[in-house]
């Protein structure tokens, strides 16, 4: 199934571009996470895109590197919210903005994800099938929208970033301080009547260093999608992207061969 047709490229959106955006800050990850995500996208996406990284390290590899401000009220991954401002990252009307987490490995062609159709007033994400219910409606690993759709979300956030960044922790909705940006996006989207569309869940695999957890996730995936496996020696061919979602997990901890093949 290929969602992006010629009309999309030469029709009313002629001149629009796809901007794939991520945030990097020193700490949990290393700059090569950005480079490997970028390389994976180049290997597995035939659609033209611009890769933008908002980073406190100028040496990350991307088409455009925007320096993270030294002084900001915005903390950690909440900087992702900045891409919702149409004034940021050189957005133009009609541009399609995709925000991605850098703790992901691209394992198959992602044209259907990168080119997933999106209209004004709509946010596209991938559907969660793993972990405890209720599942998150919006996954921070992949958020797509047309430039301008997220203006009100950004405006709400920047009026009081300190409040929102701790809101979901203070309300005991998340268990880690400064988590909850996905909840914020979902809540604000609903508040402003922005439609949320979820892509096929089986496109996403979940992985980590915990073998028991990996087995459990394999079982859920097999049952949910009637497949023989999620990730064994290699990822299921249906999987396009593997997300290392556990807050305590990093990709470089995992030494499996399939990761070496795809994360480079």
């Amino acid at each position, binding site marked *: 199934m290929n969602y992006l047709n010629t009309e999309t490229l030469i029709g009313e959106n002629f001149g629009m571009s796809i901007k794939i955006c991520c945030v990097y800050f020193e700490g949990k990850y290393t700059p090569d996470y950005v480079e490997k995500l970028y390389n994976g996208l180049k290997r597995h996406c035939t659609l033209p895109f611009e890769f933008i990284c908002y980073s406190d390290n100028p040496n990350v590899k991307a088409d455009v590197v*925007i320096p993270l401000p030294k002084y900001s009220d915005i903390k950690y991954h909440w900087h992702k919210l900045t891409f919702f401002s149409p*004034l940021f990252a050189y957005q133009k009307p009609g541009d399609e903005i995709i925000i991605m987490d850098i703790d992901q490995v691209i394992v198959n062609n992602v044209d259907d994800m990168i080119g997933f159709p999106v209209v004004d007033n709509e946010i596209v994400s991938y559907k969660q099938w793993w972990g405890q219910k209720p599942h998150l409606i919006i996954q921070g690993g992949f958020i797509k929208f047309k430039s301008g759709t997220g*203006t009100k979300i950004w405006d709400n956030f920047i009026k009081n970033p300190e409040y929102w960044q701790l809101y979901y922790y203070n309300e005991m909705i998340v268990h880690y301080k400064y988590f909850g940006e996905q909840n914020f996006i979902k809540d604000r989207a609903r508040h402003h009547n922005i439609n949320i569309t979820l892509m096929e869940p089986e496109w996403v695999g979940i992985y980590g260093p915990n073998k028991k957890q990996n087995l459990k996730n394999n079982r859920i995936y097999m049952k949910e999608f009637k497949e023989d496996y999620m990730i064994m020696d290699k990822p299921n061919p249906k999987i396009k992207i593997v997300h290392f979602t556990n807050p305590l997990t990093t990709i470089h901890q995992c030494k499996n061969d399939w990761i070496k093949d795809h994360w480079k």
Partner: protein
Amino acid sequence: MRIICVNTGDKFGHWYVKNLKHMIDTYSGLKYDEFVVITSENYKGVFNKLQMFDLYRDGANLYFDLDICIYGKVPNLIRKDLTVLYAWWRDRYHTTLNSSVISWTGDQSHIYETFKKDPNKWQEKYNKGIDQMLEENFKVATYDKVCYSINENEYKPKDNNYSIMLFNQRQFYMEPGWTGWWTNYFLPKS
């Protein structure tokens, strides 16, 4: 006439000073004798601004914050009495004043002298900044509406009724990666 700005700490890089001078020289129409930058950091944050009342005790003085956009010929901003902005664009909050633009002629060093007697007391009492301190303790005049604020205006075209826009708490709009009509008036970032 002397133009003054303050660049202490590392919140604002040197680009901000060069950018202010660029906008003044290119768009404001202001003629000045000297452009001075105060960099001595002896107090907390904005309280370093008060040093200008000690350093410059003669002639006409015009101070600008670094987080502003000057995009046209400015009205006459030189004042004899100490004059600051009236923050007409927002609710009152803790003060009605905004010291992004200040002017005075002659000697206003009594402000610094008062502060210098017990800086800790003043910095603690007025931890939200010097505007409230000026309002509650000194005789201060205010300008008419000589500029406006980016707050609630960031998505609108520039307002040609003014020639100065303040970024106030939205300094990030001046940072790399952000674009708006104001970007065209800035010194390009190398």
